[in-house]
């Protein structure tokens, strides 16, 4: 009975994820062998006892709606509270320009008014972590902050900080300044773009934004007000992956092959829920060789798999060799195929003896449903 509701605000720019986000939003990109990116933030909310979650969707939401359905797989198919999918304001007039995510929040203020909870956590879907918002809410109450901004110490020499915001903090943890990351490397306080505040404040911020003709929630509703409000930073100490490009998608996928990160991400504060399939357990035969890999249920592996991730229902035929690759759901990798640094989207079929190779820093992506 926590007095906190969740908002998942799907406003991430998806142009850097290439083929993976062509027909789906970032939120529904498959990740980690059986999940979609949104599963992480949504499960964190559910595991924090949040029972009222609104998902503000902007576009390309068919695969997301398919994935979430009634919310049953996250125990959010409820009569009171539950999961609310809140579509963009412009559905009725498709030709009108969409100016920013604040418009969508504004056009759904009714949902906020009708919710019973006093506090709200607002987050995107491109941050992968396992955290407990109850701790953040306690922190928020104890500091007396008006807004609590979650951040992580990120190694900004990698791709993670690109287009992110960084926080400058005072000695007590108050946020002095938020600025867009400038290419300066090293460890920095990277904003996770997750905020806790009272619902009333969120409503005020959104209304003011709209009145001022501003439309970007983080930039205009939060950053612009950092000096007017009491804003504190909450340091999330655990693993954080920010998926903001094809390179970061691939790099963070490969990080999951560390048992330390695997354990933290999937078990630490609670389990990660996703849409249930009824796949049998994975099967190995005598010729199978699998090393340093994640193998999901329903996989049937006859060949060799190394430093790779196989999603549910992948079949790897005899003599195939998969290295440093990600094979999404129902992939069918034919006999004698050799793949290296490849990402196969869902339902890809690579026929016998084909060889495909990308670079570790530039993985080759095979489109959903392709037969090669």
């Amino acid at each position: 009975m926590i007095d906190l509701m969740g908002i998942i605000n799907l406003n991430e720019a998806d142009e850097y994820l290439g083929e993976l986000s062509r027909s789906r939003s970032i939120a529904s990109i498959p990740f980690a062998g059986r999940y979609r990116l949104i599963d992480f933030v949504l499960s964190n909310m559910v595991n924090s006892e949040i029972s009222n979650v609104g998902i503000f969707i902007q576009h390309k939401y068919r695969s997301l709606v398919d994935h979430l359905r009634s919310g049953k797989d996250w125990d959010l198919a409820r009569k009171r509270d539950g999961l609310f999918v809140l579509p963009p304001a412009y559905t009725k007039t498709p030709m009108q320009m969409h100016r920013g995510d604040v418009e969508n929040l504004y056009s759904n203020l009714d949902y906020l008014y009708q919710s019973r909870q006093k506090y709200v956590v607002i987050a995107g879907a491109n941050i992968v972590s396992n955290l407990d918002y109850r701790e953040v809410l306690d922190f928020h109450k104890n500091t007396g902050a008006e807004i609590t901004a979650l951040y992580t110490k990120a190694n900004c020499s990698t791709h993670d900080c690109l287009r992110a915001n960084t926080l400058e903090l005072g000695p007590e943890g108050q946020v002095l300044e938020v600025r867009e990351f400038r290419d300066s490397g090293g460890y920095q306080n990277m904003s996770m773009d997750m905020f806790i505040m009272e619902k009333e404040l969120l409503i005020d911020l959104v209304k003011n934004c709209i009145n001022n003709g501003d439309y970007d929630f983080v930039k205009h509703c939060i950053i612009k007000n950092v000096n007017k409000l009491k804003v504190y930073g909450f340091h999330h100490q655990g693993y954080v992956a920010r998926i903001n490009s094809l390179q970061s998608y691939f790099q963070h996928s490969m990080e999951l092959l560390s048992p330390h990160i695997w354990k933290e991400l999937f078990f630490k504060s609670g389990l990660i829920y996703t849409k249930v399939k009824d796949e049998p357990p994975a099967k190995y035969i005598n010729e199978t060789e699998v090393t340093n890999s994640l193998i999901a249920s329903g996989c049937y592996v006859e060949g060799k798999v190394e430093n790779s991730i196989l999603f549910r229902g992948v079949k790897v035929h005899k003599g195939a060799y998969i290295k440093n690759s990600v094979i999404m759901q129902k992939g069918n990798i034919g006999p004698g195929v050799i793949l290296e640094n490849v990402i196969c989207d869902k339902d890809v079929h690579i026929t016998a003896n084909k060889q495909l190779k990308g670079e570790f820093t530039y993985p080759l992506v095979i489109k959903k449903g392709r037969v090669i």
Partner: protein
Amino acid sequence: MHKKECVAMLLAGGQGSRLGILTQKLAKPAVPFGGKYRIIDFPLSNCNNSGIDTVGVLTQYKPFALNSYIGLGSAWDLDRMNGGVFILPPFVKEQGGEWYKGTADAICQNINFIDQFNPETVLILSGDHIYKMDYSLMLEFHQRKKADATIAVIEVPWDETSRFGIMNTDKEQRVIEFEEKPREAKSNLASMGIYIFSWSVLRKYLLEDEPNVDSSHDFGHDIIPKMLAEDRNLMAYPFKGYWKDVGTIESYWQANMDLLGEQPELNLYDSKWRIYSANPPRPPHYASATAKVKNSVIGEGCLILGEVENSIVFRDAYVGQGAKVKNSIIMPQVHIEDNVVIDKAILGRNTVVKQGAVVAGKNVMGQQEIVVLDADMIIPPHATVEESISCSPAEDDFCKREES
């Protein structure tokens, strides 16, 4: 409530005492199978796949795990508005209650339950076998033959007929004689313990049998012979395919091993006839750079650092570096530390085998015996275990303390 064509009644109260340690804390239908499943998943999935949406599950022995496993029935698509899955434990009236006296008594005590659906037929199932079967074909057969009762039969090797109830049939597949474990069988058609009865007929026989103090209130012993004696139309429905009793440790172990290899007779990967089960949220399993996994089935959430061969490993198991697991069944959450050797063993849920220990059966008359370890045990470092151990009070050195 809509009228139902067919209601299934699943006899899940069996103690399964020949399964020894495996059924000390669990009803037999709740025993894990095949790296993900429990035995009861098979008949329940067959029901859903056959279009039978109303199933009464009769429980009594150690019902708790089974009840909470079945829950709403949503795992098997049996959370329905009309129908669904119903747990039916023995009922306590004001003057008290007692266990079902036999398979027929169990159904008889639930006549009211069945009557509310007003079904044409009742399908009687047990939770003892691993098989995939389309009951709707048997139902069609029953209707086409205008039978009072239809008994599913399977051909068994002639030299094993003495272990089964054997049906002797005429050429129209009508049952003319039933022999329980005959010395010299006249046929090799064994009853699978799967019956379809026309409900109005069965209802009458149950009510007649109930007050009979000489009856053991059992379908095979009492109801079927009486129907035969009274010349009712009993048909034998021939089933072809994989069907395995898992009533003993040996047959249980063998049925699990049958899943291995490249073309197992029981195909769990057929998306047209899924075996449904609970799906606890676990990540894909991880096989490390040092892992060697051959000819095995591995569940979700496992961390494999050592070697696994010819084995069934359930979810959340850990196999440490240098450990060797062979010809074994590893239940959920088992923790096998570094350099452990496990050979031809069944390790119960949540058991820990400390580093360097060896669990492997002795050879008796040229055959390695199966070692069964109970759930929640702790095998100390470098120990050698050659015989099955359960967590009885006498042997509690190896058992985890109960949390108080």
